């Protein structure tokens, strides 16, 4: 197991290195002078020169990359072209809001998707199964940000139950924070719940149709015992995988939903950076999102290897 973890960790570092090249290349893909474009109408030769020097854009590209990577490794991602603030600070400040939203969305996805998937599989062909399957078909096809718009319309504007957007710190007003969290979490979470539901349903159905399940039933075990002791343990592996994949998918979904709900996370930071052409901030946010994504995948893989020993020796 240790060897497996070490190997996967090494692969992750390699991927992260590759991501760093892409992120670094971003600013060089910009047609023309990125600092000039970022400054726009606020152009001033002195500020321009200072920013170019601070970002090291006047040096040869391999040296630029090496020094950018060296700084990034110690947590220095440069300063914002727009505000002059350190990028790392800007990202870290907004990270908790994003993680909270992703966590809440995951809770929705797992809390709705898993129980419904198991029940649907056990009672496959029932009315509940058909309804849930049909709902999941809509769920996987609906854009999460449009679902968000519809929730705002229904729960905020028509019913007036929840605030349409914004953020309150949980330390100041816990219930206010929770009420602001619900709609964005549902927007991202219910789409994922549909995908989790489909995988859980088919994984459980598959386990239900295995010989060992039939044997367990034949030797007289109750349906409940068979489900808990034989079916679910075997269905876990695909379920864990899909949850891990969903968490990564959520990091993407959260970005768009944050913008819709004015949620102060790094997705919104990235979006504002795109509008401002603040390339260093964009680099920082993409790097952090990819980093979180890779950590999640590493964690899922380790869990996967632990659940199914065959995978470790692959």
């Amino acid at each position, binding site marked *: 197991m240790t060897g497996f973890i070490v190997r996967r960790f090494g692969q992750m570092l390699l991927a992260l290195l590759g991501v760093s090249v892409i992120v670094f290349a*971003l600013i060089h*893909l910009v047609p023309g002078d990125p600092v000039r474009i970022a400054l726009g109408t606020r152009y001033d030769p002195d500020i321009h020169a200072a920013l170019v020097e601070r970002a090291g854009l006047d040096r040869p590209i391999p040296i630029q990359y090496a020094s950018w990577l060296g700084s990034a490794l110690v947590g220095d991602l440069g300063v914002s072209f727009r505000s002059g603030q350190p990028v790392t600070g800007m990202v870290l400040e907004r990270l908790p809001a994003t993680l909270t939203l992703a966590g809440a969305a995951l809770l929705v996805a797992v809390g709705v998707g898993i129980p419904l998937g198991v029940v649907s599989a056990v009672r496959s062909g029932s009315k509940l199964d058909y309804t849930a399957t049909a709902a999941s078909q809509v769920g996987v096809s609906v*854009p999460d*940000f449009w679902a968000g718009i519809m929730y705002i*319309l229904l729960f905020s504007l028509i019913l007036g139950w929840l605030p349409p957007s914004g953020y309150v710190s949980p330390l100041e007003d816990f219930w206010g924070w929770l009420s602001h969290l619900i709609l964005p979490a549902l927007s991202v979470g219910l789409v994922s719940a549909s995908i989790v539901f489909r995988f859980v349903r088919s994984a459980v159905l598959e386990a239900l149709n295995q010989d060992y399940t039939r044997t367990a039933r034949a030797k007289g075990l109750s349906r409940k015992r068979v489900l808990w002791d034989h079916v679910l343990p075997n269905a876990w592996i695909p379920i864990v995988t899909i949850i891990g994949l969903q968490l990564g998918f959520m*990091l993407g979904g959260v970005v768009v939903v944050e913008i819709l709900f004015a949620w102060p996370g790094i997705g919104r930071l990235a979006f504002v950076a795109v509008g401002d052409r603040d390339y260093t901030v964009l680099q920082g946010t993409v790097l952090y999102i990819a980093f979180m*994504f890779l950590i999640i995948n590493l964690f899922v893989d380790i869990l996967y290897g632990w659940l199914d020993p065959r995978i470790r020796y692959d």
Partner: protein
Amino acid sequence: MTDPAAVLDAGDPPVEHRSRLRTTVETVLRNRLAVAGLIMLTVLVVVALFAPLIAPYGINEPDVANRLSGPSLDHVFGTDNIGRDVFSRVVIASRVSLQVGAISVGIAVALGVPIGLISGYYGGRIDSVLMRLMDILLSIPAIVLAIAILAALGPNIFNAMVAIGIVYTPIFARITRGSVLSLRDAVFVRAARSIGATDTRIIATHILPNVIAPIIVQTSLSLAFAILAEAALSFLGLGVQPPDPAWGRMLSEGRGFFQQAPWMALFPGLAILFTVMSFNLVGDGLRDALDPQQRSLIESRGVAE
């Protein structure tokens, strides 16, 4: 002297002669959801093809007196904040959505399938390098990578197609590679090699036809993803630029007029839902027909019920 092929053929039941294509089509047509998806898709393509004839008004034809008016006989989906007919804009925008979907998935297939073929066929170092590269692309959430590419290249519809195409390339590369791996040492491939067929010939005439099924399935499902991605990018203002209508753009324009004109955001969203769902249904149907593992699951489900 009898023809040896005739002797071999004589014992076969007629069902063996049915082509794979026919079997696939029949399996898909037996699946009611897939048929529903096909019908939805046909409606969509017809609407997109004849959009200028179907749309009652021009896409940028303001009717200022009737701005923000609700659905009526004159304007079935209502009008927007500058009095443009929402129905006409939704209809015309179907063209952009389908076009972006088709071209971006086309890019992903054109890049991903050859990468997967080479990677799976040659193995070794080439495989490691190519697959690690794909892993790197997969290390950034799709929409974030697309946003980053568009931020660098500049937001417009052409770049959006390139960005979405690049983002979905690794999926095709991986799926193709996985299928090729299982064929690399198949008897017919070794036979072809032993009679001196070149690698290019083996890949093109022996391997590719045998790995095409999962690629077709993935193409349909990816079209659904690509259309969702384009909608998200246009919603963020990074895709289709005004005054051209796109469903995602219309949603973001409608956001400011929630209270007065909910139809501005309702109908473009339903159009996205309709389109994505049709590709998903067709994709699921194709998977059931073409992917034996999934098919056996369905069959066993039939037995169990």
